[in-house]
């Protein structure tokens, strides 16, 4: 009888003592997903109502707070630039030679016709500051897609985290994140409204290993494929595919300035 009790005690507490807490997992994710500096070449493929639209861009980022993106394709969007500094975002439109600050109601709108909103792109605060995180369960998941890449992740064991908003000014009141146990790359995320309605669904995959370019750098696992589905839009999906990534690169000093938008 005593032995059984001890066994149960060990089993129950064991997971607590030797496993990771939700916060620790998120911290590991953060550590892996943030970088001092990076340069990406990527393409965005938007599937809406039997139409496929491809856009390409080059982007630079420094830490979490600064990023700059320039669209290079299609011709109609060539030269459209975005600058993000902390919580601010600006857009430059070459056709009218104008810088427009993206704020207020516009933040929740679709970015370049994709399933991502400007807000999704802007999100720079650490999740820990806005959400209470609990480790819900662990499971092995398989992710399949109707369009684009057929199979992103092949049955990866994951931590499943539940994030509940602690502050009011969030778009998504609840998030559920699946984090790969081995690489600490988030592989799937579901975003919910206050009512409990699922708003968006995102998966990440094709994780590539980036060896450090400089001595003392870290080995990084970074997903090169992100698929976002805005469930409020009927039959729509956006894929972000990173075609080239470089971490810890040197970025010219005036990259993250409004002046650079007009260049």
């Amino acid at each position: 009888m005593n032995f059984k009790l001890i066994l149960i005690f060990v089993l129950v507490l064991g997971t607590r003592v030797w496993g990771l807490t939700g916060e620790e997992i998120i911290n590991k994710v953060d550590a892996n997903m943030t970088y001092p500096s990076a340069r990406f070449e990527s393409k965005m493929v938007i599937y809406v109502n039997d139409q496929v639209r491809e856009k390409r861009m080059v982007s630079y980022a420094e830490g979490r707070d600064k990023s700059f993106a320039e669209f290079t394709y299609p011709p109609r969007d060539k030269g459209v630039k975005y600058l993000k500094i902390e919580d601010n975002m600006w857009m430059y439109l070459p056709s009218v030679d104008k810088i427009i600050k993206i704020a207020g109601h516009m933040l929740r709108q679709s970015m370049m016709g994709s399933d991502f909103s400007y807000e999704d792109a802007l999100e720079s605060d650490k999740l820990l500051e806005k959400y209470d995180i609990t480790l819900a369960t662990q499971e092995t998941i398989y992710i399949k897609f109707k369009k684009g890449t057929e199979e992103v992740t092949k049955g990866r064991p994951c931590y499943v985290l539940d994030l509940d908003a602690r502050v009011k000014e969030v778009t998504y009141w609840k998030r559920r994140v699946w984090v790969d146990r081995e690489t600490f790359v988030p592989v799937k995320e579901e975003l919910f409204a206050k009512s409990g309605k699922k708003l968006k669904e995102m998966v990440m995959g094709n994780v590539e290993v980036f060896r450090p370019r400089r001595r003392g750098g870290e080995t990084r696992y970074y997903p090169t494929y992100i698929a976002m589905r805005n469930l409020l839009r009927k039959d729509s999906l956006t894929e972000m595919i990173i075609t080239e990534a470089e971490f810890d690169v040197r970025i010219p000093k005036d990259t993250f300035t409004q002046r650079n938008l007009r260049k």
Partner: protein
Amino acid sequence: MFKIALRNIFRNWRRSILSGLSIAVAVMIAIYMWSLIEGVMDNLFDNTIRMTSGHVRVLNTAYVEREKMLPLEANIQNYKPVERIAAANPDVTLTAGRIKFGVLLDYKGNNKPVFGNGIIPELESRISRLNEKIVEGRMIEPGKEEINIGAMLANDLGLKVGDTLTIVTQTAYGSIGAMNLKIAGVFSFGVVSFDKTTFFMPLDKAQQLLDMGDAVTEIFVFIKDPDRAPEVAREININLDRVYGGQYTTRTWHDVGFFWAYMRLAKGTYAAIYFLILFLASFTILNTMFMAVLERTKEIGMMKSLGMKDRQVMGVIILEALLIGAIASFVGAIWGSGVAYYLAVEGIDFSATFEHMGDFKFPVSSIYRAIFSFGIIFFGFCMGILFSIMAAIPPALRAAKMEPTEALREL
């Protein structure tokens, strides 16, 4: 019997006049309120139809499903042949291609989400009558990068005729489209939703902005008799299907769901108010007749013992009420139609109301006219009589139930 009733009215003429007066006033209020509200609603209805739907609209079938999102890609490519099919219908008086789209309007760092309408300026005078609604500047011209914006929108953003603003939008292919447009003129429809959140630009420039080639998102169709919209829509639909096989469809103004429902609800509510006014006024009749019955208890007892039947007693009372009601309603109807006629000819100028709304600078053409309809006046007159009679029934019943012996004893 008629003589008795007539004589009874004049026995206490002050009371009769008083109760008659309340009915007359109630009938007058009901008639002129009804005429005015009907007029305002018709105006709103007409404006809304002219701005948002036409009598019948031709749309891409896929557009209908997602209309709230204004899906530009679900458009009518090469729309002229499609338009010709609709125009061929003998009931049709006018057709015009349009594009409705959402944009972000940016002026000096202030921006606002608004709705744009790509229109053919030459035709617009027969559609939304935009030319008559311009309060400053002039109407846009085809082929020019110009814009007509609502007065309240102009006020909100601090815009003047001659200013240049930027509109940013998503094109039919999901790219970003932007254009600088010069404000040619400012309009006021007197309807907040239009004057605050809409603008007009030439259709050709809208097509360019939105990467739409020669496509439109909708074709407005106007017909001789708006009530025939469902039949005409069906006929056009059959002819479209013959060529395009279900690619395009039609919608009537009835299908602008919320609007139709709102109109019905509003009319129902107002009808209830007219009834309530008459109902309250009829209480004075009720009161008068009760007083009369009580006063004449002895007299009624006498008449009854002389062989007058219950029915006849009731008849006398009701007839009295009917006479008061008829005269009063007639007077009320004359007053009411007088006011309604004045309001129909002169209208009520609400612009004075707007002037006191903060720093609202633009003159607003917001004169609402009542409609002058004999139907409404006659109905008001009849309702006045009906309510008078109904109010006389309870006292009449009471009089009829009196026992002659008992009644005589009461002195």
